[in-house]
């Protein structure tokens, strides 16, 4: 254990308003900490640069899952177990529930939060590809008010996002329009559990007759942050799912993916497996189409 507990301040003001006040008064000074499943690992490794932390844990205003007519809104401090247990999420946003079960282990899922997963900003974030193919929007709040951006525009670089220094990630909004879409999400890790993702692919698609009327593809670990695969989508949108369009989509993915070599895997492996996952999804989609 390489962390020095005496070298860090941690406070728990206990309310959203108090946290926002703190962020407004001293922008950039206080690092929010939710369940701690990332920051406490850094602490123990002696790599926690943040000297001042403000706890979000236990603030009810941040830990909620609400259903409106148009959306399911997930508070930033909803844990992954909360997501798995929520009937609406499992029924209408199954890819989010599925990815929630991939985070670490049960002991991690009870503490890790959706907001934390997104703000940590790893390109391998388990929940991110699901949010992308569900057209998620991120709501950020500050004392100045609140604003939303499409999640697809939330990350601005490797572990960087568009939040201002006084802003807090407040909620994720998911439109309730994907229940009838064909859905797919597969993660490839080092083992079946407790595995950081090497690559993952999520997809939602709608067929009208033979034609793909909607398609969203998103991947983890193919770029500096989780991304949509727009070029691959373009080969499929408005097209039937044939051997030709599958090949075109595959080629497009291979070209637009920019994975790297790192300690867990290689760029070439990630690229190829992502393409294989796409094939797997498209095959399922074409079989679905032919069944109608």
């Amino acid at each position, binding site marked *: 254990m390489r962390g020095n507990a*005496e070298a860090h301040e941690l406070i728990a003001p206990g309310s959203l308003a108090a946290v926002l006040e703190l962020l407004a008064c001293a922008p950039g000074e206080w690092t929010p900490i939710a369940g701690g499943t990332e920051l406490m690992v850094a602490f123990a*490794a002696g790599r926690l640069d943040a000297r001042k932390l403000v706890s979000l844990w236990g603030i009810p205003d941040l830990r909620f899952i609400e259903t409106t007519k148009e959306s399911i809104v997930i508070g930033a401090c909803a844990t992954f177990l909360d997501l798995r247990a929520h009937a609406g999420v499992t029924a209408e946003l199954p890819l989010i529930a599925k990815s929630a079960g991939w985070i670490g282990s049960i002991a991690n899922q009870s503490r890790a939060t959706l907001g934390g997963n997104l703000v940590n900003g790893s390109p391998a974030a388990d929940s991110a590809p699901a949010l992308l193919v569900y057209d998620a929007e991120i709501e950020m709040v500050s004392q100045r008010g609140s604003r939303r951006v499409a999640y697809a525009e939330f990350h601005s670089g490797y572990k960087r996002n568009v939040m201002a220094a006084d802003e807090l990630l407040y909620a994720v909004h998911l439109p309730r329009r994907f229940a009838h879409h064909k859905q797919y999400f597969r993660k490839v890790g080092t*083992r079946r559990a407790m595995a950081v993702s090497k690559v993952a692919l999520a997809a939602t698609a709608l067929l009208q007759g033979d034609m793909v009327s909607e398609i969203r593809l998103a991947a983890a670990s193919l770029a500096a942050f989780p991304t949509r695969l727009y070029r691959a989508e373009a080969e499929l949108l408005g097209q039937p799912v044939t051997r030709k369009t599958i090949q075109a989509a595959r*080629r497009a993915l291979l070209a637009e993916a920019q994975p790297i070599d790192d*300690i867990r895997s290689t760029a070439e492996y990630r690229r*190829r497996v992502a393409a*294989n996952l796409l094939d797997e999804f498209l095959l399922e989609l074409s079989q679905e189409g032919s069944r109608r």
Partner: protein
Amino acid sequence: MSTTAKTRIVGAPVPRKEGADKLLGQARYVDDMEREGMWHGATVRSSIPRGLIRSIEFDRRIDWSEFTVVTAADIPGENHIQLIVADQPCLADGMVNHCDEAILLLAHPDKHKLREAAGAVRIEYGPLPPIFTIEESERQDQVVWGADNLLKSFVLEKGNVDSVWESAAHIVEGEYRTGAQEHLYIENNGIIAEWSAENGVTVWGSLQCPYYVHKTLIKIFDLPDEKVRVVQTETGGAFGGKEDYPSTLASHAALLAMKSGHPVKMVYDRMEDLAATTKRHPSRTRHRTALDKDGKLLAMEIELATDGGAYATLSSTVLSRATLHAAGPYLCPNVRIRSKSWATNKVPYGAFRGFGAPQAIFALERHMDEIATAMGMDPVELRRRNFLHDGDTTATEQVMREPVMMDQLLDRALRESDYYARRARFARENPSSAVKRGMGIAAFYHGSGFTGSGERILNSLAGVDVTPEGKVRVLVSNTEFGQGTNTVLTQIAAESIGMDYDDITMAAADTGMVPNSGPTVASRTVMVVGRLIERAGLQLLSMLREHGGLGAHFTREEFFAACERYRAAKGEVRSLVRYEAPPGIFWDDEKYHGEAYPSYAWSIHVAQVAVDTVTFSAEVEEFWAVQEVGRVLHPVLATGQIEGGIAQGIGYALYEKVILQNGHMANNQMTNYIIPTAEDVPPIHVYFEEIPFQHGGYGAKGIGELPHDGPAPAIVNAIKDATGVSFHSIPLLPEDLFAVFGADQKIEEPATL
């Protein structure tokens, strides 16, 4: 004959001797302990793999007067860890030969100040070119050890291989490699040490061999035997990783204790333990095999090399076992094995369950499948045709005097796994499936106990005593670290003395209290030390009959009464016995010839593996292990050993990779050194056959290491069956499978059908 007699306690699934402590959270591991006035210790380690230490500077921002600093200059005696060759310094002195080599030690009461101080020591090096591979070492690009980098070599010959090549119907060659493997005991290495002028050195810690640590400490401190005391604490896993390394850690903690005047605790965190402690030797084995037209072995020529790391440590004995397992459970009239262990500038490799056999057996059992393919033979049939039988001789010309039942083990394994039916089913299903399945087997033996004259040299002493409080104690220096030592040895004592299991306890594994019954390694404990306890128990009875008035039959009360009469007459009630070599064990250390091991355990492993062509990953779906291990003294413990060893073997084959950058372990965290979880281990089916071994405790042979020998080749053979592709090296990660499958597949073509 005790080996076949009916027993009450031996053979029964009695509760573990340590009782419920582990389940109540009351077992005390070293980090759970404190000593009054205790300080903490930390190690400053080399950041380069090889070079001179030019200067050591202490940053002035730290108040060094608060700290104790220890360097090689502080060592009162010899600056060497005593193993086989005294080449490894306790602390680097002027030169480092691997990354993370210990250079100096710091102690302080506050763990955090200690960490800060360790980071404030600046070391200037004069780097020298390092070598990192067997090949670089062989070429002597740099000479980093001795005159030629060669830590050890053996030549083992039987018959005349050179006479066979010309006329052989088939000759098959192959090269196979295994990688390093980390023990990943869940409890990191840890020691608490105390020093006083009066009592000398005392250490408590997580360790396998108290007397090994003792042997080093007396030399480090230049103290007589009785001034050094080593006590094993509850140990959270070892697997060989705490066989030799604790001697280094104990020396470090004790030096700090001596210089600071305080007890010192040194417990590694996971990052340090992974980076700085021993691992399994990587290997490269080359086979050249001649067979007749029917697939009978005519000659085996084997060249086996291991990577020893920067210092010799146990490389010679690991190489020895690898050499003696390289030709496997097969009859071959002509054998030549040339084996060499090479020094490189990496953290020294050391003992790990199997100790050279997993490396050698991976190569051989992969090669047998390659031979089968080359000859168009069934790999099962090829093995069956060549198994050793009663009366045959091994590569060292040891005559199989104990029964060998490999045929029956194979039959049972095939039956239990439904091997042929599954293979046939997969052959039908694979062409139309994205997941390819296959079956693979491995056949092997594992020699129990120390090689050849090793036990004679150990000259173990062990026994039992009876305390005035009415406890019968087993007196051994053998340690419990999960495998069941405490349970089995007390079972044996209870059985041989005729008492209840609950009346027997283990004396603490404390060199101040127990004799040296040898290390807890080499699958020797139950067979060798168990036998000593069995004899000691019988000897106790005859002592009590002669001098304590004990009758031929007795109650519990009568037994203790006799003990007290004996105590009144003789002073203490203690029965010790010395190791006696079984008759007819002749071993020539020069020629590597004769009875290599007193007994062998035999096994067949069968693996069912699924290879996913979408992700290129291989998973073991089901596993069967059939083994003949002598008498099974505790069915639950024995089964647990087999299952645990197989899980480690699965990790060795498919998950565990040590990634080095400039000789430093880059993946030194549990998040990226990958072992199988509860979701990854397949169902494992274990079946025992028993041929009691007359010289083992109640007929037992060793079983601890046996199960780690088979999984890797069985799995890679199954991958070959599933995909048609032969892999020659482990660990075999999806990226490695991809490198072959992905290369064949046209990138634009979908993997699916």
